[in-house]
């Protein structure tokens, strides 16, 4: 096994296996879930590890190099406004492909009573992330301090929350948190660092990092605003 394959395997098995072990201990000592479900959990552990492994390998083979290339070279080749547009679209399609987002919308769809189906939620999260990512790139170009963005962004969300149903608050916050998965994070980082390198002459730590945080603020804001009218 090459080093890259081994890394990807440990990356996937790392968080899954210890939790599975805790679950087995809980099953034996604390609660007895029916055997059939326990066997299905075991099958699930194998499928999740194999599936995420293949996903990571495929994404790293085909997608991340491309994302890095685009991130590094696109800022030199296109005017700033076009860069923002491309980032917006890329953020959207990457979120639509993100495994975490799919599982979340599945679960939300299964428990929520409302009109918000799984596919609609995925599209909304994608649009929110795309917009926020475009905003984050714009911030890098303009040079707004990052604390101002976080402060104002979360302040707006907090002010709106009392007017939004508890169900929507939960969905909005959960959505923001799941957008940071194994597909979007590398892609976002690649684009962000590329832009920072081309445009930024300033503190590159403060500018390259924080992009993921801003990006996940987007879906929270969009869903909170939708929640106002729901």
């Amino acid at each position: 096994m090459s080093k890259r394959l081994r890394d990807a395997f440990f990356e996937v098995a790392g968080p899954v296996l210890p939790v599975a072990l805790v679950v087995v201990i809980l099953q034996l000592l604390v609660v007895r879930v029916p055997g059939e479900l326990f066997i299905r959990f075991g099958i699930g552990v194998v499928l999740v590890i194999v599936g995420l492994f293949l996903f990571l390998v495929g994404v790293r083979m085909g997608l991340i190099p491309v994302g890095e290339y685009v991130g590094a070279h696109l800022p030199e080749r296109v005017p700033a406004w076009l860069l923002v547009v491309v980032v917006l679209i890329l953020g959207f399609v990457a979120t639509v492909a993100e495994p975490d987002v799919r599982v979340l919308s599945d679960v939300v769809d299964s428990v929520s009573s409302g009109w918000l189906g799984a596919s609609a939620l995925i599209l909304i999260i994608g649009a929110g992330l795309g917009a926020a990512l475009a905003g984050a790139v714009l911030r890098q170009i303009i040079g707004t301090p990052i604390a101002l963005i976080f402060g104002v962004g979360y302040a707006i969300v907090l002010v709106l929350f009392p007017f939004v149903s508890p169900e929507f608050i939960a969905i909005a916050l959960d959505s923001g948190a799941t957008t940071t998965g194994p597909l979007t994070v590398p892609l976002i980082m690649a684009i962000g660092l590329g832009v920072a390198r081309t445009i930024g002459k300033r503190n590159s730590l403060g500018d390259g990092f924080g992009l993921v945080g801003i990006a996940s603020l987007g879906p929270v804001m969009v869903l909170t605003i939708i929640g106002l009218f729901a």
Partner: protein
Amino acid sequence: MDEQSISTLLLHTLSESGQALGPLVAVLALVFLIFFRDVPRKSLWTMVKGMIVAALGLTIFLMGVRIGFIPYAKEMGSRLVTERSAPVLIIAGFVIGLTATLAEPAVRILAGQVDRFSSGYLKERTIIFTIALGVAVSVALNMARIRYGIPLFYIVGPGYLLAVALVAFSHSSFTALAFDAGGVATGPMAVTFVMSLAIGAASGMGRDPATEGLGLVALVALAPIISMLLLGLAYKPPWRRERHES
């Protein structure tokens, strides 16, 4: 689960994976064809091959989550609240949160970066433990929230206010790192297993699983932000040699 429903689920999941990854491939291919005409077509072909492997992987992952993780975790959550006392539920949440984060590679990668950027002033182990402790407390808090029916907003509201207040006293680079820490803590285990556990616990308590069960991922993302910002306060600046201009 009989064979027919499994094969239906498989077909459904397979087409879902195609729909998930198709647009991304199309957009990237388009960007290349428009702006990077000079790049060899071979690298585009590698991208397509990689995406086929990724689509297969996504299908298998989603199957595993739907067949195994979600039904089992929901049942376990519901049994934990109905058959066991509150402390057992809360401790189980704490342990699961701690284990999942300590073993999460994304957390280790971020901690390693911080270690390097701070020239070893902030140790990798300190960061990993800070994030993991934050997550463990948040999962435990969420279980307590479900058990006693505390609205999510009562925890998230003050939590974000605290985070915003801490940001005012923190260095901008550290702020960025803290928010990224919130992002890396929500790995696939949090979204699939721990979230279903919370939803099962909520329905076991006879509460609305939508208002009470959701919100866990949000807390898991929030807690490390606060614990990292607190850590940043404990370490007096300059924790990193740099220019103060942004």
